[in-house]
């Protein structure tokens, strides 16, 4: 653990797996997202520097704080999400490269870290004193309650398979020794559930209910402009990088070899294709889908994992 202290820690959070690295890769991935979407629609798509130009422009624009908004909460909310994603990046890379040295319960820490960006959007939206963003915040909250149940059930599967370990390092070591968890019935079901929950956590169609542009005018982000909006976009780009990485780590053998990059890109493209081929759900339909279809599937996966399949 001596390697992981002092200046190295600051370096890890700010430069290498943390802020600079994962935001750059994340923004590049949002370009991949827009390119694949464009090809699906028979278009040419934006140039490679497009996400960086967007963020640069937003950072240099005027920031409007609406009259009557809770100023501190409104401006601090984006930072909370960004900080959570920086910590997540450090944790995920650390677990993959030093699986023996990770601490007990880091999977639980990661679940809470992934809960912080939606929480940040809810706080920011509620602070903005806009009725449409209040509608967006309530939808985001409902959606969060919806997808968290199957997400946690799906994460029980690798815990059962490792014999009750709640350490991500154990997951990685076990998969390096005995093959990825994905190659079993319960593993496939659980990975599929996590994939759909990632779609919802990112707020991509069919689950872009909280940010519906056409009905509630970007919902939770409606009052954000300039730098805070750029921070929200960077946070989302980092999530787009880290969540497929999390899926690869937990179910598909970790980042042990170079194949992991191909697996990772496959998951990213799958997410983009789901995004482009599904219309937006209503919030009650989404909740019903997560609780009564994915929830039941999740319970089935846990039972199968106990049986040993």
């Amino acid at each position, binding site marked *: 653990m001596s390697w992981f202290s002092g200046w190295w820690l600051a370096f890890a959070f700010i430069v290498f797996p943390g802020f600079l690295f994962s935001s750059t890769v994340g923004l590049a991935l949002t370009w991949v997202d827009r390119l694949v979407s464009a090809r699906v629609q028979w*278009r040419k798509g934006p140039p490679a520097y497009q996400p960086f130009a967007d963020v640069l422009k937003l950072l240099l624009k005027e920031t409007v704080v609406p009259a009557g908004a809770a100023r501190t909460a409104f401006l601090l909310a984006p930072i909370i999400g960004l900080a959570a994603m920086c910590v997540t990046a450090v944790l995920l890379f650390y677990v993959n490269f030093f699986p023996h040295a990770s601490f007990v319960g880091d999977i639980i820490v990661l679940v809470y870290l992934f809960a912080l960006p939606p929480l940040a959007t809810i706080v920011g939206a509620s602070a903005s004193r806009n009725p449409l963003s209040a509608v967006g915040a309530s939808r985001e909250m409902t959606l969060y309650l919806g997808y968290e149940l199957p997400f946690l059930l799906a994460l029980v599967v690798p815990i059962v398979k490792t014999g009750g370990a709640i350490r991500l390092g154990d997951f990685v070591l076990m998969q390096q020794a005995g093959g990825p968890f994905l190659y079993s019935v319960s593993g496939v079901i659980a990975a599929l559930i996590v994939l759909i929950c990632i779609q919802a956590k990112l707020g991509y169609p069919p689950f872009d209910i909280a940010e519906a542009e056409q009905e509630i005018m970007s919902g939770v982000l409606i009052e954000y402009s300039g730098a805070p909006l750029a921070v929200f976009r960077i946070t989302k780009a980092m999530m787009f990088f880290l969540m497929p990485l999390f899926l690869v780590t937990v179910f598909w053998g970790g980042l042990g070899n170079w194949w992991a990059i191909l697996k990772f890109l496959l998951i990213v493209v799958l997410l983009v294709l789901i995004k482009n081929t599904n219309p937006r759900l209503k919030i009650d339909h989404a909740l019903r889908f997560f609780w009564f279809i994915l929830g039941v599937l999740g319970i089935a996966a846990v039972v199968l994992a106990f049986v040993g399949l």
Partner: protein
Amino acid sequence: MKDVRIWGLKRSPWVYHVAAASCNNCDIEILELLTPRYDVERFGIVLVGSPRHADALLVTGVINRKSLPRVLEVYEQTPKPCLVIGVGTCTCNNHIFRNSYNAVGPYDKYLPMSAYIPGCPPKPEAMILGVVKALSKL
């Protein structure tokens, strides 16, 4: 710093569509402009849902006593720098409504316009030309 700012603005102009009591014809043409056939995302142009995110306002329709305060409010809600582009002949000179008691246009009496795109409605190609001209003036 100013160069970087203008570079960003030119490479990613996000558009908000202000339909200020138009006959819907220009609005339909704007939607056509955003279809895959013209693919304006090549230039970073994206339609956004909130004026707070916008860099360019596309206003359509003849301005009248009822829509004027609304358009001004949307302009004030938009973070600066922002372009205002009038789409359609109505925005230029009130067009066939010029003898109406209610028409108080044209827009540049009230807003700093960047470009007017004449036509009833203008073709998507004309709109692209207008946006390019407005951006190259920056």
